């Protein structure tokens, strides 16, 4: 099952997602990137039905870009989160998207932030959040080890603890994870944690 989690540190926010694309019992690929770079200083880690995940996050990404083109300034993280929630809420009673989202961003005025948006459009600003079966492990580990103002090293250490726990305790644990970070210098990929490499084509 898909594992997505994230936390806010000292001047940065970090999100982690597994990278398996699964269809029933078959693993299509194990290097699927589920964390989209929304704009220069925002990340969207999404989990759920793969069609909805890709379509919905791309829709949000393009609309966030459109706002920036029209208005000359980028959306704040809170505004992007509320826009996302609005789209999910509007679709909820017509044609719901089955996508859970952790939206991480960095704003110059307010610093890093993380928003928990579940598939029925409940929005909440959090310091740490997680979705999926992996959340049963990662949330508890983060409750134990998290404190506000963690450094990048401490946060990545906690992330690795969560990944180890998921790998060892979840029955259909995804083997590979991608870690992305957003801080004042922007949103970027931080690292991959691979235990199974995709078979490379000739």
């Amino acid at each position, binding site marked *: 099952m898909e594992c997505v989690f994230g936390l806010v540190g000292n001047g940065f926010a970090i999100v982690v997602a597994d990278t398996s694309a699964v269809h029933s019992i078959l693993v299509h690929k194990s290097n699927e990137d589920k964390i989209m770079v929304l704009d220069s200083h925002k990340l969207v880690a999404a989990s759920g039905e793969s069609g909805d995940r890709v379509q919905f996050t791309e829709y949000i990404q393009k609309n966030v870009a459109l706002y920036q083109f029209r208005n000359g300034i980028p959306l704040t993280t809170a505004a992007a989160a509320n826009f996302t929630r609005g789209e999910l*809420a509007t679709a909820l009673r017509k044609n719901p998207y089955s996508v859970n989202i952790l939206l991480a961003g960095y704003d110059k005025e307010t610093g890093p932030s993380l928003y928990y948006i*579940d598939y029925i459009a409940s929005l909440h600003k959090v310091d740490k*959040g997680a979705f999926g079966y992996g959340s049963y492990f990662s949330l508890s580990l983060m409750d134990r080890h998290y404190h506000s103002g963690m450094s990048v090293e401490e946060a990545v250490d906690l992330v690795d603890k969560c990944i180890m726990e998921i790998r060892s305790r979840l029955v259909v644990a995804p083997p590979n994870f991608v870690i992305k970070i957003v801080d004042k210098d922007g949103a970027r990929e931080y690292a991959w944690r691979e235990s199974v490499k995709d078979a490379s084509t000739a």
Partner: protein
Amino acid sequence: MSIFEYNGSALVAMVGKNCFAIASDRRLGVQLQTIATDFQKIYKIHDRLFIGLSGLATDAQTLYQRLVFRHKLYQLREERDMKPETFASLVSAILYEKRFGPYFCQPVIAGLGAEDKPFICTTDSIGAKELAKDFVVAGTASESLYGACESMFKPDMEPEELFETISQALLSSVDRDCLSGWGGHVYVVTPTEVKESILKGRMD
């Protein structure tokens, strides 16, 4: 599993002497899992009117946004704040609009009306108003809250005593409900000030 019990909530409002108090728990959960312990369920409409929304969190947020929108429009047109009784009717109408596809919320409305007379009411998810002279409750812990409030309530309490009473009623009720709790959020509103407090209860 009822859709009203998906996120978990506890809300109570009580009438005092020229004042009222409205309190909620702080848990945001997804069925058995707790997501956050600082989730806001009571919103200010204006300085003398508060609404608490229990039930499904997404509908509470949507409903709150719609109500604030309608109130802001009212303020622009009428150049004054809405009376609590009027606002309660507005909430009731908006809920009944969705009679065959309702918002899964149960609101608790509390305000100071004309001559600083406190007003409280609750509605069900399709807008049936329930006015009360003493207290109203909503949420997954509502049965416990009814019992606690019935035994602890006295008419014409001063703000300090009202705060104590509503806090004790809330905390003792949420302790019997696994889906609500993780502290309390209390607003005590008098004609001159609004006092907001956070309660620390059993954090489970």
